[in-house]
């Protein structure tokens, strides 16, 4: 019973903390844009928190540069359990186009460092896709959200292709 209530509360109040792991800024701006009047994530109970200590969902962007690597692990550890990670942007999901040829200071995406629960590719993904990713993450916890999700999918055709679920990785 208590678990059920706690689960309900978590689904209804996912606070996010945004972490930039060396992205170009575009995804970060789109994440903030998702909180703005047009998309208004607060109607799903999502609040942007400044401190990882108060967050449930870490939204990570960028290919993870060598300099930020230790910091992202620390931020991940600072967040209290239960916690989830959403990787945003093509560099966040794979490190491309920055990693690879000629590069010397970037890793290959967020999941090379910490477990990721949801991927949002796109350069940058639209705020709708970011909203959708967070909703979909929550719907894996709560089947009831499927209706909201279906409505969302109907209103923006093709949005389900914008998000990819992560392999469940042991923390």
């Amino acid at each position: 019973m208590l678990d059920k209530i706690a689960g309900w509360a978590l689904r209804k109040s996912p606070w996010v903390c945004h972490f930039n792991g060396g992205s170009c800024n575009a995804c970060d701006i789109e994440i903030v844009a998702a909180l703005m009047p047009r998309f208004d994530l607060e109607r799903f109970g999502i609040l942007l928190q400044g401190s990882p200590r108060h967050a449930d969902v870490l939204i990570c962007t960028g290919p993870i540069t060598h300099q930020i690597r230790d910091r992202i692990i620390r931020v991940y550890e600072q967040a209290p359990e239960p916690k989830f990670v959403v990787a945003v942007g093509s560099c966040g999901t794979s490190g491309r186009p920055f990693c690879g040829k000629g590069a010397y200071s970037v890793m290959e995406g967020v999941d090379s460092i910490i477990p990721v629960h949801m991927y949002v590719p796109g350069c940058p993904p639209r705020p709708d896709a970011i909203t959708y990713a967070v909703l979909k993450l929550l719907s894996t916890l709560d089947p009831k959200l499927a209706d909201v999700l279906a409505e969302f999918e109907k209103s923006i055709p093709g949005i389900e292709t914008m998000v990819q679920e992560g392999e469940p990785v042991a923390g």
Partner: protein
Amino acid sequence: MPLFYVLIFPGFLFLLAFALFAEYFDRKVVARLQNRQGPPWYQPLADTIKLLSKEDIITHDADKPMVNTVPLFGLAAVAASFLYVPMWTKDWHFSFQGDLIVVLYLLTIPAFVLVLLGWYSPNPFGSIGTGRVVTQLFGYEVPFALALLAPAIAAQSWRITDLLAYQDDHYWFALITPIAFLVAIAGLVGKLERVPFDIPHAETEIVEGPMTEYTGRKYALLKLMFSTETVVGAVLIAAIFLGGPHLPWVTKAVAGTAVAPLVGFLAVVLKALFIVFLLSVIKAALTRLRIDQMVRWCLTWLTFPILIQILYIVIVGSM
């Protein structure tokens, strides 16, 4: 019966429910003013339950017994102060001579809770936040206390029920002492650390100030402490300046009947929500001040006018 009063209604449980509703109301109003849809009604409840269920991290160099108990003290102090503000009638059963002073005293405790927490937190933002809490305390506390003193001088009593009786006979104190009313609202904004006085936990400067390092249960208690303090402050100001349960004409019409407490109760709740609404509008319309600007502003625009107000009351009262 007293146990029911203290724990359930109008005590702790009702206070929590009212506080969560007021928080929702506040967030919704701000969101609407910002052209957004805002959160659903159960949002503060979900937030609180979620925080209670989350992992409780204590940094290894913190003083464990201290940081564990201090947030509880804060919430308890606010809850205790709630017992002394009349919720539906002016003949309040917990009332005693000087209860206004006790409420004022209990309402300063949350600030000291923050000071202690910031002190015991290893985070530099905590220490800066602590300094700001203390500095800010000097800014708003004196005018806030003086603003509540003004009606007390006029009614010549330190007892909230006497102030209510005085307003029943005369006008509401918001009309008799308008400056005191405005100063009290401003002081309440400072007490609750809301925009423009949210300096101690200014997000873009020092993250959450003293609260930065506290997670889960402790953060939930701190948030509850603030939302209950909002409600207590709003009800207190409603009682002292807006006549509490008194409604013109209506109160007289229903006096002595069974619905009288209900009417009084509704009056108090609506007046308190009106105060919360004012706070929300202020939050949406203003920019955060800097700590030095805040102290200077409080001295010129709060302390000075309230002294004139008190002088006026004393002169008029002695004539």
